[in-house]
C-alpha cells in the first residue's frame, strides 16, 4: 500500500534528520551562469525582440497601397518599432515573473488546510450576498448621477447569474452538455409575452406558468437525447435551441415573427404599478415618484429569483436526486449498476434547469418590454455556457464571479473612451469585445483548466460517533 501512503496528510510535517538533509541537498548553490538572472532575462528578451523585428519588418514595417499604375510602398517605422518594443517588454516581463524566476507567479498558491479556505469562501459568499442586497442603495447613494446605468447593469449581470445557475444544474451537476439552453430562456420569455398579449396575464401569474412550460420543453428535449452523451448530446441540444428560435421567427401569425412582441406589461408590487401619478407605487407610499424605483424593483425581483435558484440547487445537491446527478456526471454505468434510474435522473435535471431558464426568460421579457427571436441566438447559449465553464463546472460562486467578469467586463469596455487618445479616434473598444472575450477564455482555461473555482464541496460529511466501548478501551484505542 505504499502508493496510498502518499495521500496521508504528512506534508505539513517538518522534515527531520536524514530527510532534512536530503532537502538541503536538493537546493544546490546558484551556479555562476544562473539562468534566472536578470541579465539572462534581458538577453532572452532582446533575442525575441530581434526576431520580432526581422519577422515583422515586412508584415508591419512595410505597407503597400494601391496607387495608380501599381503598388505604392510606404514605410511604417513607428509601428515597427512599437511592435518590437512590445515584444521586448512582454518577453522580459514573462521572463522575470513566470519563466526564469525562482518563484513564478503562476505557481499554485499553497492552499491552506481545508478549514481555512472554507471559512474564506464562506466569508466571501456572505460578503457578496450582503453587497447584492444593498446594491441599489449603494449606487443611489454613491453614484447618484449614474445609478440608473449601474443598477441596469446589475440587473443584466444578475440575469446571467441566474441563467448560469440554472444551466449549472444541467451541465455542472448532471454533466449533460447543453448547447441549447437559450431555448428555455426563449420559451419562458415568449410564454409570458404571449400569455400577456392574448390572455392579459400579469407577470406574477405568468411567471410560474412560464417556468412550468419551460420545464415541459426541457422534458420534451430530454426524451430523445436520453441515450446520448457528450458531443452527440451537445449537437442535438444545439439543434433544439435553433429549432425553437426558427419556429418563433417563422410562426408569424402567433408570435409576430421577426417583428417581436412589444408592450409586455411591467411587474406590479402587490398590485401597485410603478408608475407616475395616482394609484402608483410612489403615490401609495407617499414618496416622490422617481423612475429609479422601477429599476430597483426589477433588481430585487431578479435577485430573489436568482437566490431561489441557488437555494433550490444547494438543497437538491444534498438530497439523493442531486447526488444522483453528480454521480451521473461521474459515471453513468456505475449509476445504473447502483439502481439509479438514469432516465428519470436526466429528465429531472433537464426539467429543473429549464424551469429556471424559463423564469429568467419571463423576467427578461418584463424587463425589456419587447422581445424578438433575435435575443435568443446561439451566442446567448454560448455565453451562458462559457459562464458556467469558466466559473468552474458545478460551482455556484464561480458562476457569480464569471458573470460579473464577463458581462460586467463587456460593459466596462463601453467606458474606455480614454483609449481613443492612445489608439486614435476611430478606436471603439466594444468592437473588440468578442476578441477579448475569447482571449480571456483561452487564458483562464490555460491557467485554471477546471474553471475559476474548481474545488467541489462535498455534499455530505461523515459524523463519527464517539463510542468508547469497553473492548476499545481494553485495546487502548479509546481516543
Amino acid at each position: 500500500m505504499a502508493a496510498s501512503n502518499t495521500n496521508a496528510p504528512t506534508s505539513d510535517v517538518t522534515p527531520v534528520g536524514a530527510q532534512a538533509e536530503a532537502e538541503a541537498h536538493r537546493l544546490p548553490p546558484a551556479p555562476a551562469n544562473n539562468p534566472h538572472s536578470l541579465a539572462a532575462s534581458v538577453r532572452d528578451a532582446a533575442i525575441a525582440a530581434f526576431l520580432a523585428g526581422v519577422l515583422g519588418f515586412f508584415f508591419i514595417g512595410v505597407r503597400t497601397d494601391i496607387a495608380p499604375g501599381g503598388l505604392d510602398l510606404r514605410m511604417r517605422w513607428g509601428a515597427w518599432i512599437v511592435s518590437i518594443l512590445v515584444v521586448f517588454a512582454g518577453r522580459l516581463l514573462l521572463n522575470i515573473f513566470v519563466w526564469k524566476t525562482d518563484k513564478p507567479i503562476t505557481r499554485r498558491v499553497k492552499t491552506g488546510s481545508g478549514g481555512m479556505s472554507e471559512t474564506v469562501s464562506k466569508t466571501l459568499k456572505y460578503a457578496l450576498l450582503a453587497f447584492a442586497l444593498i446594491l441599489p442603495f449603494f449606487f443611489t447613494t454613491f453614484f447618484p448621477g449614474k445609478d440608473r446605468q449601474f443598477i441596469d447593469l446589475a440587473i443584466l449581470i444578475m440575469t446571467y447569474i441566474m441563467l448560469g445557475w440554472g444551466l449549472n444544474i444541467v451541465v455542472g451537476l448532471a454533466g449533460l452538455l447543453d448547447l441549447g439552453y437559450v431555448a428555455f430562456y426563449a420559451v419562458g420569455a415568449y410564454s409570458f409575452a404571449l400569455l400577456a398579449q392574448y390572455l392579459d396575464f400579469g407577470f406574477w401569474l405568468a411567471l410560474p406558468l412560464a417556468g412550468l412550460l419551460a420545464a415541459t420543453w426541457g422534458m420534451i428535449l430530454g426524451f430523445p437525447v436520453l441515450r446520448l452523451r457528450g458531443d452527440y448530446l451537445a449537437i442535438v441540444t444545439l439543434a433544439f435551441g435553433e429549432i425553437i428560435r426558427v419556429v418563433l421567427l417563422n410562426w408569424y401569425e402567433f408570435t409576430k415573427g421577426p417583428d417581436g412582441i412589444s408592450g409586455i406589461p411591467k411587474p406590479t408590487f402587490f398590485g401597485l404599478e410603478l408608475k407616475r401619478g395616482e394609484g402608483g407605487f410612489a403615490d401609495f407610499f407617499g414618496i416622490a415618484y422617481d423612475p429609479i424605483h422601477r429599476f430597483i424593483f426589477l433588481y430585487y425581483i431578479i435577485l430573489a429569483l436568482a437566490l431561489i435558484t441557488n437555494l433550490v440547487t444547494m438543497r437538491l445537491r444534498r438530497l439523493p436526486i442531486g447526488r444522483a446527478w453528480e454521480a451521473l456526471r461521474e459515471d453513468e454505468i456505475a449509476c445504473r449498476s447502483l439502481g439509479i434510474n438514469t432516465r428519470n435522473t436526466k429528465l429531472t435535471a433537464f426539467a429543473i434547469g429549464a424551469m429556471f431558464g424559463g423564469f429568467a426568460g419571463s423576467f427578461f421579457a418584463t424587463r425589456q418590454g419587447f422581445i424578438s427571436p433575435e435575443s435568443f441566438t446561439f451566442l446567448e447559449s454560448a455565453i451562458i455556457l462559457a459562464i458556467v465553464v469558466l466559473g468552474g463546472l458545478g460551482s455556484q460562486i464561480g458562476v457569480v464571479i464569471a458573470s460579473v467578469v464577463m458581462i460586467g467586463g463587456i460593459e466596462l469596455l463601453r467606458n474606455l473612451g480614454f483609449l481613443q487618445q492612445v489608439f486614435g479616434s476611430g478606436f471603439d473598444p466594444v468592437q473588440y469585445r468578442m476578441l477579448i472575450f475569447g482571449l480571456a477564455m483561452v487564458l483562464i482555461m490555460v491557467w485554471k483548466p477546471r474553471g475559476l473555482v474548481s474545488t467541489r464541496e462535498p455534499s455530505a460529511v461523515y459524523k463519527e460517533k464517539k463510542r468508547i466501548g469497553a473492548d476499545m478501551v481494553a485495546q487502548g484505542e479509546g481516543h
Partner: protein
Amino acid sequence: MSGAAELLLAVRGVETYYGNIVALRGVDMDVHRGEIVTLIGANGAGKSTLMMTICGDPRARKGRIVYDGMDITQMPTHEIVSHGIAQSPEGRRIFPRMTVMENLQMGAALVDPDHFDKDIEKVFKLFPRLKERIAQRGGTLSGGEQQMLAIARALMSRPKLLLLDEPSLGLAPLIVKQIFDAIRELNEKEGLTVFLVEQNAFHALKLAHRGYVMVNGVITMSGTGAELLKKEEVRAAYLEGGRH
C-alpha cells in the same frame, strides 16, 4: 455448503448479442443461497457480459434469468438492483470527484436512510482503511482502496446477491488477499451470496464453493472449486504460469 441449498439465481439458455455479434451462446448457471460461485475464463470469453446480462444491460436476447423466484430477464437495470442484486462493475467505476462518503451514499440510494449509519459502520469494519479516507475524493484513492470502495458501495445497498467483476484487477497480491479475505468473511459471517467473475483463477477457485469455466460464450466445465483446481484442462489453460 449443503447440497440442498435454495436456488437464488438461475441462468437458463441465455444468449446475448452486441449488435449482431454473439457474446453468450446459451449459458446455464446456478447460484445457490449462501454460496460463493466463481466464473473463470480467458479475456473475451464473455464473463463480464454474463454478469452485465444478469443486471439487464445488455438484455438477454434468448433464455431466462430467474432471481429469487422472479423472472428478471426483461426488467430494467434499476429495478433488478432494487430487488437485492448489487454489482461492483469491471474497472471499479467509483465516482472520482465525489468523496468516499458520497460514494457510499450513492450505494445506499435505494435503501431506507435509517439503515445508513449502521451499514456504514459495518463496511468500515470490513475495510477500516475507507474510514480513514472518508472525506477524500474517490479518485485520489489507491487502486486497492478504490476496489474496496467499489465493494463497500455495492454492500451499502444491502444486497442478497453480490456480483463482483474482477476485483483483483491490477492489484498487488497482498491487496488481492485482503479483498478476497473480506469476501470470504462476508460470506461466512453474513451468509452473503457472491458471484465472482475472475481472471485470477487460482485465488478465485480457492475462495469459491463452486466454479464455472467459460470459453467463447459457453460454459465448458463446472464443479466445486477444489475439483476444478485439480482438472488438467483448467490447470493448463488458466493456471500454468499464473500460480505462485
